[in-house]
């Protein structure tokens, strides 16, 4: 029917939203944060296991939400695993600009293509919050880390 809707609700997005990856609460998570969108009542809990080497060893989430927020959370957990905090935050920064339509030459390295799947959000300004909810929770989780390092 409508091109921008097809662009927003691509197969990959729908798949992630119906079968979210890393949808669990890891027992050894050492950082977590709760995200809440008062507009729609959606919630997300993000769990991180940060290793001693500064790498994100595990990333997972639980929550209720729309297709966009679930897919974005699911893809996020896949992407940030194995990254450093700085790398993760840097990717979020670019991703946020991408979905707000502020950046046209988005580059997140090997993850670019996957994240570009969510670029359709930029035609739907009311949905930017959905796409970024889990990411905000992720950075909060990191910042609550007492020995936060910006490298």
């Amino acid at each position, binding site marked *: 029917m*409508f091109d921008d*809707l097809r662009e927003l*609700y691509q197969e990959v997005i*729908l798949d992630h939203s119906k079968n979210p990856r890393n949808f669990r609460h890891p027992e050894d998570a050492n950082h977590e944060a709760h995200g809440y969108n008062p*507009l*729609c*009542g*959606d*919630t997300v809990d993000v769990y991180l296991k940060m290793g001693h080497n500064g790498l994100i060893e595990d990333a997972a989430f639980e929550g209720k939400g*729309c297709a966009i927020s679930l897919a974005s959370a699911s893809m996020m957990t896949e992407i940030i695993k194995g990254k450093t905090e700085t790398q993760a935050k840097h990717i979020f920064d670019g991703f946020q600009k991408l979905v707000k339509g502020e950046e046209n030459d988005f580059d997140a390295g090997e993850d670019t293509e996957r994240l570009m799947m969510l670029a359709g959000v930029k035609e739907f300004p009311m949905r930017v919050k959905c796409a970024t909810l889990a990411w905000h929770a992720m950075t909060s989780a990191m910042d609550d880390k007492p020995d936060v390092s910006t490298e």
Partner: protein
Amino acid sequence: MNDMTTFDVEKIRRDFPIFSREVHGRPLAFLDSGASAQKPTAVLEAVQKAYAETYANVHRGVHYLSQVSTELYEGAREIVRAHMNAASVDEIIFTKNATESINLVANSYGWAILKPGDEIILSTLEHHSNIVPWQLIAEKTGAVVKAVPIDAHGEFMLDKYLDMLGPKTKIVAVTHISNAIGTITPVREIIDAAHDAGAVVLIDGSQAAPHMKIDMQSLGADFYVFTGHKVFGPTGIGVLYGKAELLDAMPPFLGGGDMIERVTFAKTTYAKGHAKFEAGTPPIVQAIGLGAAINYVNEIGFDKIGAHEQALLAYATEQLQSINSLRIIGQAKHKAAIISFTLDGVHPHDIGTIVDRGGVAIRVGHHCAQPLMDHFDVAATARASMALYNNRADIDALVASVKSVQEIFG
């Protein structure tokens, strides 16, 4: 004349300039009047004229424009009084919205009479605006807030309510119609039982005012509130009706210009009647616009509006129910033209976005009624709310778009 006795929805639609526009290249199917209604030309013109031709502050001047502006503003109060069949204009207070009206009663009446352990009875159907003000005043006074439960259909449980009423009950505050699921509550029984128990009753008529005639003298509510923007009037205007003997005894809420009799630093005395509760420059032009809106609906007549809306509600219910995996939340026997629903496997937010691309404006979310959402164990619903200007084409557009939601989500 025939025109006077039939309800011509297409003619009514032409009274609303917004329906000449398209959304995303589609005709606008505006099914979000429960959040706020569109405005007829009569209101737009009243607003425009009040600013462009006769504007000045009210109550304060002897000059010509001030006099005309005052007459228009007070004339709007009389229109509201007559519409609500209140005994006196002193019982009609203009506020900024229904929320302020409720806060006014909670902070003035509630503050004056509530003692620790006193009970305020609400219901699970309430809008946040009829919950939070009572929680705030309860916290300040030590009173307790209780909620009358609803059943699986979304009906107000009158028997439970009667059990809850008691000597500690001081205030009952209940909605006339649920904004989230359309339930019409048994206000008459609620009011009578509260009065028997010695409690005072506030009815939140925000969703009733656009759909039915409201009559203060036959209803007997002590306070009744509604909001201008939902009844085809401007934003920034609300109404509080209060029985004169209660208002007279209540302390002021907001302090400032126009609500005083005499101000000195040693002692200030307050104005009588509605003036005591209208501090500062009132929403002058918004009240004038509200008066025009009320005249507009009364010219059409609520009997016809009600019949049209109920027919549309029946049609929409039937059509939506025919959709697989669609579940209507709230199936009270008496309902206003509001339908809340969910679709299996699709979040309401996604429904909202997709139907919007079809030109269909519905609201998705908790509808400022989280306790009600909790009751039905959903975080959000999609809600189509109708008004006098909606037609079958709007419903058809909604149904078609919901079907395309299903297509997209497979």
